[in-house]
């Protein structure tokens, strides 16, 4: 009864961004603190 779901290994979003030469722009524009800001907004609405 065990069900196996095959997973595929794919190229990462970082690799795609890097190959498109937009990784640095992306990281500058969307710093990881974005979710942290939203978390703080939830705590202190």
């Amino acid at each position, binding site marked *: 009864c065990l*069900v196996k779901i095959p997973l*595929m290994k794919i190229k990462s979003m970082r690799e*795609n*961004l890097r190959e*498109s030469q937009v990784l640095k722009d992306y990281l500058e524009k969307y710093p990881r603190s*974005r979710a942290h800001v939203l978390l703080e907004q939830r705590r202190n609405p």
Partner: protein
Amino acid sequence: AVTYEPMRNYLDLVYIGIISIGTPPQEFRVVLDTGSSVLWVPSIYCSSPACAHHKAFNPLRSSTFLVSGRPVNVAYGSGEMSGFLAYDTVRIGDLTVVAQAFGLSLEEPGIFMEYAVFDGILGLGYPNLGLQGITPVFDNLWLQGLIPQNLFAFYLSSKDEKGSMLMLGGVDPSYYHGELHWVPVSKPSYWQLAVDSISMNGEVIACDGGCQGIMDTGTSLLTGPRSSIVNIQNLIGAKASGDGEYFLKCDTINTLPDIVFTIGSVTYPVPASAYIRKDRSHNCRSNFEEGMDDPSDPEMWVLGDVFLRLYFTVFDRANNRIGLAPAA
């Protein structure tokens, strides 16, 4: 209905699975993510450029579709989606879940997802991590009697494009060596457990006195508190680049020692060949990354795919425990 996933960063994700939604089925490539609990895919009503790059669900083509209209917003470490809640039949492998709640995106701001190869995300975390009052996919698999055991397991292959596997409702022992070591889930929300220490050459280099770790298929790297990560980068000779990555000399893969995670008094070595990754241009980067600082738990580590490739992992909802064994 807003859910926050502050630790999510899908930039480095490389494993996806295929599910279908609706009648007749519409296929989607999704991340099977133990660090979140919501299923969402793009909708045909999404106007963001990111949605144009992915398969979008068309409710008009599904005879089993039900709309809730409840707004949904999911914020990730690397972007966000907003949309509305709906219900439809979801198929994963040979299993068919009826009336599964899921999010349909109306907006995926920025270029988050634009460069992603996957269409959406299927969360396998505990229900309280997701939307209030909504039953996640795995809970419905169990509640609708579709799986014999209330657990699932991941085998992540490091070499092949194929070969990685999510097991639902049971464990195939041919995917690991030796015995599974069980560790209790310390906080049933994420798949979180207590880590005893992190050491190198027999000396504790992080997590001194214990810390918390999250087993997360939706995170690629090993993330931890800033001070600990900086310490480890220094110890392995990794230098920061302008864009937050740490580079090191590729030949150190052969000389650097294992970094050992001790969990439940059992040691789980991570060799340099795992914590250093070489790209196609033969540049080598550290697989340790600063995590999102969580004020409620400053000593939080996320053990992502780098760790899960080495150790077959069972996520046992029935007993709220995590099983670990060296991957075959």
